[in-house]
């Protein structure tokens, strides 16, 4: 657990007066701003939110219970899948490229495509909500857990080997304990994401739930309702986040070890990289086609790989289709790149600040969690209002969507600084920033790179969402338009291109990661 978070409870107990006054002042300011701007329908006053919650307590409670139950099931299935995939990769290192690629591609699938398919597969009921909640969390658990499974000193593996024991023993005795803190980070990131996933899942045609009420409230210009739902979603996410953290601390995790590993030389065959890429491509195409055939999804809305090929390359009008899609993609990428960098820098920077000044955490974390747990359809109007429909607004939406996983992962990474190293800095009475630069930042790097990889699909999804809701440009707007005119050929072509871009960027980030970690954290690269 991160020191900053671990101290939250104690801090609150120590400073009840100050915190209470700050909270009270914030509420008064909020109420005043809301009342002053009531005519323009931006912000609901706390008093109006409380009144709405009391008046509609029964309705909100029933909707909350439905959404929560879907989120809990999605949380369990998604995290289970993420952990199992990480275990598979550690036990079968050769499968890493394939598993990581497939995991990334599935995470890239946008709601406009998955929504109708899941609804047709599951029919009425909560299947799509649970599935979308699971899809929202597995990737952000898979990556940190994989990092954790490798965060053990090389000497311990040598020890296991010298006793003549195999991989399973190494897994049980060395890797799993090392992965636990990273699992806690993954589960903490997953908590708000699962709830949000379940809410958004209700957009696919659900009878009830908080997501349904959100859509209704937004259209009815019912600000107290919208904000009540946002408050509930944030509160449950903050509680789940705190509960996972508490459980993590109860596990009595072993203190971080000094991880010594000899630098790794890249000694792989020239054909290994292209070979793995080709295998990943073939398996992806086979799964894509196979799954659609297995469930007998009609070609009308479930386009096969060959349909996309015809649409983009060999069929009539392919050239026009290509030009349209590539133009939109270029525009999208020009917003994604700055948003991606800004979100990562903001998340990692905030983690550093909160580690240097732990007191700020008790005020910052709830806001950070809230930003991540409220549907973007509800927050986007506020961001657009504040920053406009241009580049600033879009980049802000991306940064909001990706800074939270980065923040949590980096906080946990910083907390994995080996005690012995910190003691050394202590002995020399080193300043805080020196300790940060010399000891904590290097310890954070594996977690930071894991979040840099997590953030790739998240950034693309965030940009496409902003384009759909606010700017009306790029691939996001294109996908929304073609989905409403049944142009599923273009939709699936866009999905394929997004997947391809994500895989390429993932490869680039991975290369950078190997280059950096081979110098700072070689244990991550040992296979």
């Amino acid at each position: 657990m991160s020191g900053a978070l671990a101290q939250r409870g104690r801090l609150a107990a120590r400073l009840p007066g100050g915190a209470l006054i700050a909270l009270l002042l914030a509420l008064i300011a909020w109420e005043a701003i809301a009342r002053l701007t009531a005519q323009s329908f931006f912000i609901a006053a706390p008093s109006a939110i409380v009144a709405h919650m009391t008046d509609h307590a029964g309705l909100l409670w029933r909707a909350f219970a439905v959404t929560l139950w879907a989120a809990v099931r999605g949380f369990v299935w998604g995290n289970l899948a993420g952990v199992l995939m990480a275990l598979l990769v550690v036990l079968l290192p050769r499968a890493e490229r394939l598993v990581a690629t497939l995991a990334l591609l599935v995470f890239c699938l946008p709601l406009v495509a998955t929504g109708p398919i899941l609804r047709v597969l599951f029919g009425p009921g909560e299947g799509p909500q649970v599935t979308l909640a699971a899809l929202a969390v597995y990737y952000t658990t898979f990556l940190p857990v994989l990092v954790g499974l490798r965060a053990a000193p090389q000497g311990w593996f040598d020890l296991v080997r010298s006793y003549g024991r195999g991989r399973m023993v190494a897994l049980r005795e060395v890797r799993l304990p090392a992965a636990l803190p990273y699992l806690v980070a993954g589960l903490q990131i997953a908590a708000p994401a699962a709830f949000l996933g379940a809410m958004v899942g209700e957009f696919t045609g659900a009878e009830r739930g908080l997501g349904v009420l959100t859509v209704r409230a937004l259209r009815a210009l019912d600000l107290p309702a919208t904000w009540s739902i946002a408050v509930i979603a944030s509160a449950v996410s903050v509680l789940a986040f705190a509960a996972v953290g508490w459980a993590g601390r109860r596990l009595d995790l072993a203190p971080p070890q000094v991880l010594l590993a000899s630098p790794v030389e890249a000694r792989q065959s020239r054909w290994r990289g292209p070979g793995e890429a080709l295998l990943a491509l073939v398996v992806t195409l086979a799964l894509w086609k196979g799954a659609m055939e297995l469930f007998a999804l009609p070609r009308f809305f479930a386009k096969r790989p060959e349909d996309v090929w015809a649409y983009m390359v060999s069929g009539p009008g392919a050239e026009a289709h290509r030009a349209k899609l590539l133009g939109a993609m270029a525009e999208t990428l020009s917003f994604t790149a700055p948003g991606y960098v800004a979100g990562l820098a903001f998340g990692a920077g905030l983690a550093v600040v909160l580690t240097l000044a732990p007191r700020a955490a008790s005020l910052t974390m709830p806001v950070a969690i809230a930003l991540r747990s409220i549907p973007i359809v509800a927050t986007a109007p506020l961001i657009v209002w504040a920053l406009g429909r241009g580049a600033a607004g879009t980049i802000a939406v991306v940064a909001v969507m990706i800074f939270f996983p980065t923040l949590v992962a980096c906080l946990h990474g910083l907390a994995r600084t080996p005690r012995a190293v910190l003691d050394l800095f202590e002995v020399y009475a080193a300043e805080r920033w020196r300790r940060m630069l010399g000891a904590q930042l290097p310890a954070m790097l594996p977690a930071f790179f894991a979040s840099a990889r997590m953030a790739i699909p998240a950034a693309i999804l965030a940009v496409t969402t902003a384009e759909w809701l606010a700017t009306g440009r790029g691939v996001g707007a294109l996908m929304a338009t073609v989905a409403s005119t049944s142009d599923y050929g273009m939709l699936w072509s866009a999905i394929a291109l997004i997947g391809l871009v994500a895989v390429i960027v993932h490869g680039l980030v991975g290369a950078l990661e190997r280059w950096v970690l081979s110098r700072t954290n070689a244990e991550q690269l040992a296979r």
Partner: protein
Amino acid sequence: MTFRTPTRRLFLGGALTTATAGLILPRSARAQEAVNFQLSWLHSVQFGGSYIAQDKGYWSDNGLEVSLLPGGPNAPVEPPVVAGTALVGISAADYTAAAVNQGAPFKIIGVAMQKNPFAIASLAENPVNSPADLVGKKIGMALANMPVLEALCAINDVDIDAIEVVPTQYDPAPLVQGQVDCLLCWATDLPVAMEIQGIDNVTMLLADHGYAVHSQTYIATEDSLANRRDELVALMKGEVMGWQDYKADPAAAAALTVEMFPDAGLDPETQRLQAERQVPLMFSDLTEAEGFGWFTDETVAANIETLELLGKPVSADLWDRSILEEVHG
């Protein structure tokens, strides 16, 4: 969690499941055929006639057990109808035309909204009363609806380049906040929401300015039309009866809607106003003479003309009146 697989072969599976369910649940003496009916949006009085049909047993009396499936922001109607999970869906002529142009085997078998509900909503102090008023204005809309604005401008000789289009979410906030001067929306939802919030607003119905596109249309696949006629007739019969009751008392339909869906978060006053506002869109001299849902060669021809402007060329074959003829005959 029911896992539905939409192949023809597995239709049998669906029927079997229903049969099993029938053994457990109390059932009427007549065998009930179970069908799904895919609505185009969340439950609201927009589908009031269907709720009346359900409530008064207009379907069960005809041997049909209908499940009403709600739509949503990411729940297009066309896929479940193509896949066979829904027998009938609520679409609109422009959406259906687009889907047919992409290879979907749809027919329009009935028209609930004779007049298209699309409207330009504006605030009373800065009103848009005619298409010419749009010049120099900022309009907020979903970009997907760009062809609608283009068609309106083409029909009314308005220079579209003189209108500034701002992509917005489908909610009234951008108008109320002054980000735009007007919104392209349905006359029956966002303007009603503003009315309820006490915001003085003006709506200009596109249908009153030459925009002829059937809305809230009933679509079914050619395959269903060939092989499941009895069910289609029974379903449409219930619809016609339900909507006739609706016309007689829209307020009662609104009350029933609120009562049937306590978890939908519906506001009774909003539902009542919406119920009232959609009456003139759904009932006309034509439906008075021929019955609910009717369409003629003339109304179809007008639709084909507007759809051409929308870039969705279709032929009159898209409409099939045989089911309605059986219902009303």
